């Protein structure tokens, strides 16, 4: 199954429309799209408005390939389950997000293992082909951030709690 997701915040009709048209042409087998509040309703892909967190994680794990906006929730979850990920960044001037930070996200993730960036709609079929050829990733993302980072945060938190403790008399 190919899973298409626009994440949990804003609609992203452009991605859904392009993937719907691609699905009609390419007949790639089962395609499921999470379309959020989008107004374009696909006719060639299965779709849901929203999945629960557990359903979302489970669907990601069962997918052969994920095609998504360049959102960090999707990127991190795809990395955790080792699935190849095609990213199409949202563009601010088309009302797809409040800033163009997804372009920056796509640029720093470009070329990382398992990540295939489509800068434009026309790049999507090529990126999907490359992602399918790459297949599942053997190395999956560990569950937590680097221990040096979380350790420093923990020390800071414990320091705050210490200062807040009532002095012993």
């Amino acid at each position, binding site marked *: 199954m190919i899973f298409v997701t626009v*994440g*949990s*915040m804003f609609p992203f009709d452009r991605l859904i429309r392009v993937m719907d048209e691609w699905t009609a042409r390419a007949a790639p087998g089962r395609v499921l799209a999470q379309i959020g509040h989008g107004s374009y309703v696909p006719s060639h892909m299965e779709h849901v408005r929203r999945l*629960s*967190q*557990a*359903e979302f994680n489970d669907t990601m794990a069962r997918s052969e390939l994920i095609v998504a906006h360049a*959102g*960090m*929730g*999707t*990127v*991190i*979850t795809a*990395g955790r389950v080792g699935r190849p990920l095609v990213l199409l960044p949202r563009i601010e001037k088309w009302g797809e997000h*409040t800033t163009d*930070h*997804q372009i*920056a*996200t796509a*640029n*720093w993730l470009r070329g990382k293992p398992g990540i295939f960036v489509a800068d434009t709609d026309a790049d999507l079929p090529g990126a999907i082909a490359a992602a399918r050829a790459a297949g599942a990733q053997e190395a999956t*993302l560990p*569950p*937590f*951030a*680097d*221990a*040096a*980072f*979380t*350790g*420093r*945060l*923990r020390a*800071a*938190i414990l320091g*705050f*709690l210490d*200062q*807040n*403790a*009532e002095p012993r008399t």
Partner: protein
Amino acid sequence: MKRQRIMAIASGGGHWVQLMRLRPAWEGLDVFYVSLDPSSAVDVPGHRYYTIRDASRKQKWAFLLVAASLLRILLRERPAVVITTGSAPALVAIALARKLFGARTIWIDSIANAERLSTSGQKAGAVADIWLTQWPALTEGEGRRPEHWGAVL
């Protein structure tokens, strides 16, 4: 000993997923969580999990309702420390927690903000005791800048 509680708060989607990657920082401590999606409770079994509605800074009334929900949560839980990975509702949470309850606050700007801080992240500098960006380059520039301690990836 009193007020040893930690509030870990994030908006939905990527903000929440990033917060989850930082859990070793408060594992074993007295922590409760706040986010947007009721179904995210599955990620933090055994912990109190509150949901608030989403609102952007531009939706004035919705934003006030979010602030009221946060105030109720803060009154009930009285956290000593609030830690967040954003976004706008979390900025309100750390501002209220610090100004009304004297909590210590930690803001970690989302890793999605690679080229500039988020708007909320910029404002968080005024209400965060520890103010962090996940991008080293963003520690440089005019005026007061956030620190870089690491990244979720």
